[in-house]
C-alpha cells in the first residue's frame, strides 16, 4: 500500500471511531436532557452518567487525533480547510468547548443544574450538524480560489439541499447509534425501565437514518456526479450496510441479543462510512486536494506511520483496560462499584 493510502485509511478509521463513540456521547446528552424534561430522570440519567463519566475525555481525543493527523499526513488540507473553515470551524470548537466543560461542571460540580444539562443536550445535536459541514464542503462547490486566496461560499452551503440532507443524516445517526448502544448498556445493567425507553428510541430512529442516507445519495448525484458514480461501483458496501441495519433492527425488535444488535449497528456504519470514504478518493477536497497530491514528504510519512504503530501498542492495551473496568464489568455497570 502506498503511504497516502495508509495515511488516509488510518485517519478514516479514527474518524469512524470518533463517529461511534461521539455519537453515543452526543445522543446520550440529548436523552439525558429529554429524561429531565419528561420527568423520567431517575431511571435513565444514572445509567448515562455511569457510562459517560469515565470516557468523555477519551472521546475528545479521537477527534483531536483526526485533525492533527490530517494536517500531519496531508499538510495542504491545513491551507484550504484552514482558510475556508475559520467561521464554521470556530463555531464547532465553541460548541465542543461548551459541551465538554459544562458536562464536567454539571457532573463533577456538586449542584445539578438544568441549564448545564440543556447546554449539554443541545450541543450534542448542534456539533454533529456543524462538523458534518466539513464533509459537505469536501464535495466541492463551496470554495472559490482566486489570486486573493480561498473564499468560503457560505450562501451556497446554506441554500444547498445536499448540505441539509447531510446535516439531517448526521443528527438522526447520532440518535440512532446512541439509542442502540444505551439499550445494550441498560440491558447489561439489568435496568429494564431504561431499556424499554431506549429500545423504543432505537426502533424509532432507525427508519429516518435510512431515509436520510437515501436523501444524501440523491443529493450527491446532482451535486457531485463523479463521486456518485464511484459510489455506485462500490454498491456492495452500501448493500452490506443495509443488511446489517436490517439484522440490528430485527434483533432489537425481537428484544434479544442487544449486544450483537449494537455490533450490527457498528458494522452498518462501518460499511457505509468506508464506502463513502473509498468512493471519495482520490479527492480529499474536491477538486483542490487529492491524496497523492497533498501527501506529506516520505520521511515524515514514514515517521508518522512508525509512531502510529508504536502508539497503537500503547493504546490498545490501555483502551482494553478501560473497557474491562467500565463497560464489561457487570458489577460496575449495575452500579455496585
Amino acid at each position: 500500500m502506498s503511504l497516502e493510502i495508509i495515511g488516509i485509511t488510518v485517519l478514516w478509521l479514527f474518524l469512524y471511531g470518533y463517529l461511534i463513540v461521539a455519537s453515543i456521547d452526543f445522543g446520550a446528552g440529548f436523552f439525558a436532557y429529554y429524561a429531565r424534561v419528561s420527568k423520567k430522570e431517575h431511571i435513565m440519567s444514572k445509567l448515562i452518567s455511569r457510562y459517560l463519566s469515565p470516557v468523555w475525555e477519551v472521546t475528545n481525543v479521537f477527534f483531536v487525533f483526526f485533525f492533527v493527523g490530517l494536517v500531519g499526513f496531508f499538510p495542504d488540507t491545513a491551507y484550504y480547510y484552514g482558510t475556508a473553515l475559520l467561521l464554521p470551524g470556530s463555531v464547532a470548537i465553541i460548541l465542543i468547548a461548551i459541551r465538554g466543560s459544562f458536562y464536567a461542571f454539571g457532573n463533577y460540580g456538586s449542584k445539578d443544574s438544568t441549564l448545564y444539562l440543556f447546554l449539554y443536550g443541545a450541543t450534542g445535536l448542534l456539533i454533529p450538524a456543524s462538523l458534518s459541514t466539513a464533509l459537505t464542503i469536501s464535495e466541492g462547490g463551496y470554495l472559490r480560489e482566486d489570486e486573493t486566496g480561498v473564499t468560503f461560499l457560505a450562501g451556497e452551503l446554506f441554500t444547498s439541499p445536499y448540505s441539509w440532507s447531510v446535516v439531517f443524516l448526521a443528527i438522526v445517526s447520532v440518535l440512532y447509534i446512541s439509542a442502540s448502544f444505551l439499550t445494550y448498556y441498560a440491558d447489561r445493567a439489568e435496568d429494564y425501565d431504561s431499556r424499554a425507553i431506549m429500545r423504543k428510541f432505537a426502533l424509532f430512529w432507525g427508519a429516518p437514518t435510512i431515509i436520510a442516507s437515501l436523501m444524501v445519495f440523491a443529493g450527491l448525484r446532482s451535486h457531485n456526479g463523479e463521486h456518485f458514480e464511484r459510489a455506485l461501483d462500490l454498491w456492495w458496501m452500501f448493500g452490506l450496510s443495509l443488511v446489517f441495519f436490517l439484522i440490528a433492527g430485527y434483533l432489537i425488535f425481537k428484544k434479544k441479543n442487544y449486544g450483537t444488535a449494537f455490533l450490527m449497528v457498528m458494522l452498518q456504519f462501518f460499511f457505509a462510512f468506508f464506502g463513502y470514504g473509498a468512493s471519495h478518493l482520490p479527492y480529499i477536497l474536491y477538486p483542490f486536494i487529492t491524496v497523492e497530491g497533498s501527501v506529506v514528504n516520505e520521511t515524515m510519512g514514514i515517521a508518522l506511520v512508525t509512531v502510529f504503530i508504536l502508539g497503537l501498542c500503547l493504546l490498545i492495551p490501555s483502551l482494553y483496560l478501560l473497557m474491562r473496568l467500565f463497560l464489561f464489568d457487570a458489577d460496575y455497570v449495575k452500579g455496585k462499584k
Partner: protein
Amino acid sequence: MLELDGVMLSRLLTASTLIFHVIFATIGVGIPVMIAIAEFIGLKKNDPHYLLLARRWARGFTITVAVGVVTGTAIGLQLSLLWPSFMQVAGQVIALPLFMETFAFFFEAIFLGIYLYTWDRFKNRWLHWLLNIPIVIGASLSAFFITTVNAFMNTPQGFDIIDGETVNISPLAAMFNPATPTKVFHVITSSYMTSALILAAITAFIILAKKGTDYHKKALRLTMTAALIFSAGTALAGDLSAKFLAKEQPEKLAAAEWHFETESNADLIIFGTIDENNEISNEIRIPGMLSFLAGNSFDTEVIGLDEFPEEERPPLWVHYMFDMMVGIGMYSLFIAGLFVMFMFIKRFNEWNKLLLMGIVASGPLAMLAIEFGWIYAEVGRQPWILRGIMTVDEAATTSGSVGIAFGLFLALYAVLGFFCVKVLLRMFKNRPPEAELEKRFPGGSL
C-alpha cells in the same frame, strides 16, 4: 496605535487562546505530580490525611482538566485555521511531535478516567497508586511534545528550502533543535512549581481564615517543600535558558535586557524606562551581571541589538515581562525557602501570619510568571513565526472573519473562566475535609 488587520487579529486570537489554555495546561502538567506524591506518602505512612488530600485535589483537577482539554482542542484547530500557510510548511517538518502529542493525550485521558473512578475498587491500594504513573508521564510528555514544536519555531532546523520546496527533511533533527532542551526543562519545572504553589496558596488561605486543622498543616508542609525543590529547578532551568538565548537567539535576550551594543562585561538592567532614543533611566544596574548570566563569566561577549536590522528586532517592552518573571521566580524561591527553614528550626514559627500571606500571594504570582514568561518568549520571537524563515504576516489566514471569531472566543473564555471558578468554589465550600475524613476513614483507619 494597533492596526486591527487580519494578521493582528489572528495574533490576538492566538495569544488569548494560549494565554487562557496555558493556565489549565500548567495545572494539568503539575497537579498529577502533586497528587501522586500525596497518595504515595499517604500509603507509605498509612495516613488518611494524605489520601484525602490526593482525593480532594483530584476532584478539583477534573474541572480544570475539562477546561484544559476543550481549550487545547480549540488551539489545536486554531493553529490550522489562523496560520494555514505556517501549518502547510511546518506540517512537512514538525508534524511528528504534534502527532505524538495526541498519543500522550490518549494515554493520559484513559488512565485519568480509570484513576478517578477506581479509588476503592482495588484491594491493594498500591495498584491504584500505580495509575498515577501513566497520568504523570502522559501529562509531562504532552508538555514535552508541544514545547518541541514551539522550540522549533524559535530555532528551526532539520530541513532545507530549495526553490521554495522543503527538502532533506529530518523529523528528529527538527524536534531536537537547539532550543528544545532548555525550553522543555524550564516549561516542565515551572509547571510543577506553579502547581505546588497554587495548592499551597489555597491551603495557606484556609489556615489564615482560622479554619485550618492538622490536615491543612500537613498539606502546607508538603506543598511548600515541593515548591522549594521545583522553584530551584525552575531558576536553574531559567538560567540555562538565558545562556541558550545568548548563544542561539541573541536578539531575544538583547531585547529583554535593552542591550544595544555588543560588548563584554555587559550590565544587567532591571526595570527602568526607555525613551525613543533608547536612553534608559530609573533602572537598577548590576555591572557585568548580564555577561555573567549569558556565559558564567564577566568577560562573556553579549551580542547587542545593533547587529540586527531594525525590522528584525523584537519589541522592547518584553523587558518588563522578563523582569517580572525573574522577580517572581526569586520571590517564590525566597518564600518557599523561608517556610521550609522555619519548619526545620524549632525556634521559628512557620505559621506566622505574614509568611502565610506571602504564600497566598505566591500562587497567583507563579501563574502570572508563566504568562509573562510565555509572552516574553513569543513576542521576543517577533517578527518571525519561524525564526529566519517565515514572518508572522506571511503566515496568517486571508479570511475576513477573524474579527468575529475573536469576539466569539473572548466571550467563550469569559464564560468558561467564570463557571470554572464558580464550580470549584462550590465544590469545596460545603464539604469540609474533616467531615469527609470521618466518612471515608471512620476513626482514622484505612
